[in-house]
């Protein structure tokens, strides 16, 4: 059972079986989440309708980091245990992470304009997320630079590990430095600092977007495994 996490063949069988189900669940969840977030949740007393950007911004920010964490784990697996699936994973996941990071940055700056009065401030969290985006781009560039496929994936995995130093900086930047970006408010489960009317749709959107991420990831992984099969016969 655990083999689907690192064996390309097993994973391919698993993905073939369940991608369709996953697609249905994702669409269902996305519709529910979007309706809940955009229509049925109340406008904010101060922010008005623009608070609803949050329902895109927060899931994307979470997924941008989650993708990188997964890539880091799989890079370690690939480099230290010679698991080829790790390289395939990094190659499949990098563009998804880059897109989520980009959406996070853009939605954040659209949200920031009415709230803070500027599109962009050089505070610690924004800067570190921007650097995360640059790391994603460089990983994609490295993967496509080398003539030899195997060198490219090994070097890019090493670069993923180098860039993973950035992750704790993003996570704790709002605590370490006194910044404009508000500190995390969802994770304090014992005493959440936001209303249940906002927390509900936020969690719904988070779950829906995570499912969307896994759907895209499954499709890309399947495609990547098929490319390998044709490249390396025997």
């Amino acid at each position, binding site marked *: 059972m655990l083999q689907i996490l690192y064996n390309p063949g097993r994973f391919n069988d698993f993905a073939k079986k369940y991608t369709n189900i996953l697609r249905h669940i994702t669409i269902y969840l996305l519709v529910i989440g979007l309706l809940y977030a955009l229509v049925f949740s109340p406008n904010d007393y101060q922010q008005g309708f623009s608070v609803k950007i949050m329902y895109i911004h927060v899931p994307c920010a979470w997924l941008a980091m989650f993708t990188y964490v997964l890539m880091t784990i799989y890079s370690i697996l690939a480099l230290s245990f010679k698991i080829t699936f790790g390289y395939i994973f990094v190659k499949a996941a990098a563009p998804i992470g880059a897109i989520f990071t980009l959406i996070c940055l853009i939605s954040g700056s659209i949200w920031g304009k009415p709230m803070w009065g500027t599109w962009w401030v050089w505070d610690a969290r924004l800067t570190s997320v921007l650097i995360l985006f640059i790391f994603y781009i460089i990983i994609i560039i490295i993967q496509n630079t080398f003539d*030899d496929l195997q060198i490219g994936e090994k070097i890019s995995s090493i670069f993923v590990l180098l860039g993973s130093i950035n992750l704790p900086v993003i996570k704790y930047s709002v605590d370490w430095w006194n910044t404009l970006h508000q500190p995390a408010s969802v994770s304090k489960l014992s005493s959440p600092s936001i209303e249940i009317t906002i927390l509900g749709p936020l969690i719904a959107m988070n779950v829906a977007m995570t499912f969307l991420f896994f759907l895209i990831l499954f499709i890309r992984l399947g495609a990547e495994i098929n490319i390998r099969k044709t*490249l*390396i*016969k*025997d």
Partner: protein
Amino acid sequence: MILANNITCRRGSKIIFRNLDFKIEDGIATIISGKNGSGKTSLLRIVCNLLVPKSGEIIWKGKSIYKNLEEYYKNITYIADNNCSKDNLTVIENMNFWKRLYGSKITYENFMKLIDSLNLREYMNQKVLFLSYGQKRKLELTRLIIEERNIWILDEPFLGLDQDSINIIGETISDHLARKGMAIFSSHIPVSISKKQYIDLDLHESN
């Protein structure tokens, strides 16, 4: 003695040769022949662990070399198809560098004899930049003597050499073999070495 056991080599998506077995014995030169692209260089690189074969292993002193790499490395002289002498250093500086790098115990007289036998004396203090291709190759081959190793792995050692130099290198290899050394090299040029065996890669070509 080195045993190669069931070696399969893959470059990119193509299998170059499959299930190759051979034996490199003390005192017998092993010559690899084959067409261009038949995997001569790859085979030599596999023997000195610069390339990992798709399957199979190299056995030395009864053990797989992967279990005894450091000891194995200390017995190898590998001369690749390109020259590693630095252009901006003189001939003697390059040779001195190799001597110090390998901690060689070669004496000064032997050193000079070596230079004389390859007709490099008048170029001794020239930069390598100004040497011809054959002279650079000869300079590279001095590493055989300087490094004082047991297993000689040479990639096209005679390419670009004149007939005299080929004979000298051939004699050097014969001497080495007479001292129970091992030598494996790829070559298109016939050499006068009495004890030799051939590995023909064309016979192992896979398709």
